[in-house]
């Protein structure tokens, strides 16, 4: 039976236009109704080059439903190539053309010999959400554009993380991951954000390996690249936030890449020294147990739910109440991710629920005994319910209304400190 979904935390697969937008000088061409793009755009920054308002769109209507929209798609691509200066064009299809059976792939294939690459990613909303749409875009690049390379660059690592724009901290996070990887003596390669773009896409096949930092988003892409391009991958499921996890992360990457152990340890201790120096300076704040809440709940996509839970338990010694994953994680990944929530320090295990219905999540938060005021890190939807419980709230996941982020990040040692700052900034306000 059809059911209502309250406060969903994702968009339809066509939301992948944000993934395309995150690639420098890449342009989405939308084969969809005019309303689709409009309702998917949001104010978390544009690409810095194209405004989403100029994304070419076939704006298909009833006529195209009945007679097919391929002609319009063809002319839209043709004209986009003429008037918009991009390095890469990716055609994204919405529901309508896919339902009525437009062969968009065939139309796009007519542009194989165009001066700039024109690719096609099927992203109809009925096929899934924007996490899935993101994977479709990367798949399109791998399948339709990249070719296997015999030439390899020693130490080159492609880094993949979660979904740009859906993750408010995507830009800062990926830059920080790059930085950490290069400290190990490796050469990071990413395709999202400032000055990356097509040149870095071209480098993908030459990498020594792919590094995926995400519980599940992108795993399919890694497998595809392994098959097609012969690139092995390291899947690190936890977004490393804070010292405990980041040190583990660096060791795992170091081992996989064959980096000298001493070198890895040297990098780690330099970071840890500074990290614990900062923590030590604020020991009074941490030991004053009235300041921070005893138990916490994270309501977020899998990456933040897992990453923040590990951080708050392992680094800050807080106790997890129930955690919620709201990204509609595909069923076959769930057990493995739930396992990760059991691998916490001090023998602690966290209970996690894969729940997309905001109403149910809020009911559970309301009825749980937090042994005091709750600490809730979640989407803006959780603000009101947390306030009604007199708890502390921090907006870390979509939807973001409470925070403007340019290139701030939560990943790594520095990211952990940033998250502590944010949490305690909220917590101390109780005493003002």
């Amino acid at each position: 039976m059809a059911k209502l979904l309250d406060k969903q935390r994702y968009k339809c697969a066509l939301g992948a236009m944000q993934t395309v937008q995150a690639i420098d000088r890449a342009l989405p061409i939308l084969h969809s109704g005019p309303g689709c793009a409009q309702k998917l755009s949001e104010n978390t920054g544009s690409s810095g080059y194209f405004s989403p308002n100029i994304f070419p769109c076939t704006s298909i209507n009833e006529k195209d439903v009945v007679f097919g929209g391929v002609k319009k798609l063809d002319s839209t691509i043709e004209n986009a190539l003429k008037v918009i200066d991009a390095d890469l064009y990716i055609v994204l299809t919405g529901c309508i053309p896919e339902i009525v059976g437009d062969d968009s792939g065939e139309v796009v294939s007519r542009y194989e010999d165009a001066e700039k690459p024109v690719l096609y990613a099927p992203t109809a909303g009925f096929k899934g959400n924007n996490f899935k749409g993101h994977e479709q875009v990367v798949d399109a690049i791998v399948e339709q554009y990249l070719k296997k390379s015999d030439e390899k660059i020693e130490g080159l690592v492609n880094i993949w993380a979660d979904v740009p724009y859906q993750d408010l901290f995507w830009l800062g996070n990926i830059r920080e991951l790059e930085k950490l990887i290069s400290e190990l003596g490796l050469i990071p390669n990413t395709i999202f954000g400032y000055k990356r773009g097509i040149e870095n896409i071209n480098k993908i096949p030459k990498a020594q390996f792919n590094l995926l930092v995400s519980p599940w988003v992108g795993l399919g892409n890694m497998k595809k690249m392994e098959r097609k391009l012969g690139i092995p991958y390291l899947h690190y499921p936890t977004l490393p936030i804070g010292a405990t996890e980041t040190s583990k992360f660096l060791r795992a990457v170091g081992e996989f890449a064959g980096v000298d152990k001493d070198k890895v340890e040297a990098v780690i201790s330099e970071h840890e020294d500074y990290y614990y120096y900062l923590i030590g300076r604020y020991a009074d704040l941490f030991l004053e147990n009235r300041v921070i809440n005893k138990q916490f709940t994270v309501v977020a996509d899998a990456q933040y739910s897992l990453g923040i839970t590990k951080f708050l338990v392992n680094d800050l010694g807080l106790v997890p109440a129930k955690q919620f994953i709201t990204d509609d994680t595909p069923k076959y990944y769930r057990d493995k991710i739930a396992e990760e929530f059991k691998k916490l320090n001090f023998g602690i295990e966290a209970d996690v629920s894969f729940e997309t219905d905001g109403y149910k999540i809020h009911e559970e938060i309301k009825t749980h005994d937090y042994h005091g005021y709750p600490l809730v890190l979640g989407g803006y939807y959780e603000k009101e319910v947390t306030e009604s419980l007199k708890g502390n709230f921090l907006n870390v996941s979509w939807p973001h209304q409470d925070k403007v982020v340019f290139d701030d990040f939560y990943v790594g040692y520095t990211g952990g400190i940033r998250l502590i700052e944010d949490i305690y900034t909220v917590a101390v306000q109780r005493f003002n």
Partner: protein
Amino acid sequence: MAYKIAIGSSDGKIVDLKFGEVNKFLIYEVGDEVVLSEEREYIPGEAEDNSADSCSSSSCDTKSCGGNGGGCQGPGNVAGKVELISDCRAVVCKKIGFQAQKQFEKKAISVFDVECEVKEALDKITFYYKRIDNHESLRG
């Protein structure tokens, strides 16, 4: 439920007339079968007089643009023609101007500006309506 489709075609085979060029709409009635039920002639001037369209001021001399088709898409001409087939569910012509599209939209009449065979147009449109009237998916 039966409904009508108005088509702009000079020979009954190809949708070859622009909306402005149509003097005689072929009206197809769609019930259990699709039949050509009438040829409805457009007589300039007549329809305008009894249509309460937005262009009723004297400054708009409908006669001047009401000639024999000829592509004039002025509001008077358009309103009359729209009124003439306002009992139809859809109109099919080779091209239909913006003015006319808007007018049809207001009356919830679907506009299909396509160049194809009359038969193809009828097949596709009736297939589409059949599916949506029965709440069936358009897939496949």
